[in-house]
């Protein structure tokens, strides 16, 4: 009697074990078995990803992908994507991970899973090192250049004190030129734009003074990939601890990794 029950139980466990891989594919073991990590990266969004002079993709996302591949001890295979097709590439299984300046929102969370954040992406008020601005009230009496109609214009128009002067320009280049030529005290824009300034005019790189809107970037992966998610998170956590993610941020964004990321 007991024997039969044991046999039946064994059979059940065995069949479950057999059926599990097909029902819940474990990408992590797939990746290690095939020895290749397939990652979707941007190709038209510097400094996160662009095509370098040698026609190879380069950028923060590419370096992050390389870091993950190195830690998994597998080869890296990059797939260039754009912002509209990056999630379909993941959900149809063409890539294992999306590292493509991907922000988190509820609509995306319904479809895919997110790792912990690996890079900062935010809109803020930036200025020279000696500008004493730590709160919105400190903007009183200051002039701030901003691109008209951009998210930071809308936010700052609501939040800034009355005596702060917003100088609105037509495009990013004029907004930057107004700051670099000293026509304004501060500039409101994204940290990516600051990286672009750093690329061209490293002497007057504005530092972050106020954060207006935070939307850090995450690694995107398919749902129900607990093992892969845990592994990616572990690699990101240790890369944060040993400073290698900070080095990537310094290299591409010219700003240190924020402490709370």
């Amino acid at each position, binding site marked *: 009697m007991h024997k039969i029950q044991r046999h039946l139980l064994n059979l059940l466990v065995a069949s479950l074990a057999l059926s599990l891989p097909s029902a819940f594919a474990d990408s992590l073991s797939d990746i290690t078995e095939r020895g290749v990590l397939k990652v979707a990266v941007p190709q038209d969004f510097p400094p996160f990803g662009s095509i370098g002079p040698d026609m190879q993709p380069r950028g923060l996302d590419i370096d992050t992908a390389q870091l993950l591949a190195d830690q998994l001890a597998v080869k890296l295979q990059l797939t260039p994507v754009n912002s509209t097709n990056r999630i379909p590439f993941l959900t149809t299984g063409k890539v294992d991970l999306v590292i493509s300046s991907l922000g988190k929102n509820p609509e995306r969370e319904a479809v895919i899973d997110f790792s912990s954040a690996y890079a900062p992406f935010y809109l803020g008020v930036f200025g020279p090192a000696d500008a004493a601005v730590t709160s919105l009230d400190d903007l009183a009496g200051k002039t701030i*250049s901003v691109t*008209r*109609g951009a998210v930071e*214009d809308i936010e700052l128009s609501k939040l800034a004190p009355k005596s702060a002067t917003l*100088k*609105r*320009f*037509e495009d990013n280049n*004029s907004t930057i*030129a*107004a700051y670099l*030529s*000293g*026509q304004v005290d501060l500039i409101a824009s994204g940290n990516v734009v600051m990286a672009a300034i750093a690329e061209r005019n490293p002497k007057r790189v504005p530092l972050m003074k106020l954060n207006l809107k935070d939307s850090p970037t995450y690694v995107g992966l398919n749902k129900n990939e607990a093992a892969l998610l845990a592994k990616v998170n572990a690699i990101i956590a240790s890369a944060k601890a040993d400073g290698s993610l900070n080095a990537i941020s310094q290299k591409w964004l010219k700003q240190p990794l924020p402490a709370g990321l």
Partner: protein
Amino acid sequence: MAYQFDFIPVLDNADLLLQGALFTLSLTAAGTLLGVGLGILGAVLRAWRIKPFNQLFGLYVELIRNTPFIVQLFFIFFGLPALGVRMNEWEAAVLAMVINLGAYSTEIIRAGIQAIPSGQLEAAAALAMNRIEIFRHVVLRPALAKVWPALSSQIIIVMLGSAVCSQISTEELSFAANFIQSRNFRAFETYLVTTLLYLAMAILIRQLLAWIGRRFVVGGR
């Protein structure tokens, strides 16, 4: 589907548009007074070939008349700070307008001065008028009277050209229109109202200049 007109979001911002229109008019007034003054000076120096200023003004006229206004404006606002000359946006706008109108009006008024028959100057000298009297009554006034319509048109052009100053965040009428449009996305209504405002301002300035011309330049001695 027919476009649904909605002027309410634009009219809600009527104060912004009126402020912008007033700012455009003040820019134009300042630019015109100083610009025409510069033009008269340049015209006299050029017409009478007073060295070395006639050559300097010749260079200035060629430089300004052969470069776009927006480039001159950007040079003043974004470029000059590199040399330590920093102007705020309305100072830069006025300066650009003065320099621009100064160059064009130099040539317009010079044409008027050179069209004065030399016999008229000799007649004035024969009547023992002094140099200042000759300049005022025999040179400047007849010269301005001859070119007044051309000068009026140039002033209108400068007023309309001030729309470009919105690019350096000068809060004139076009800036107000762009700002309102970027907030309510009612492009058609906003720019229709703005167009009508510019038209009204141009007609107003033309009438004013015609009156000044009749009263002080051509007529009433």
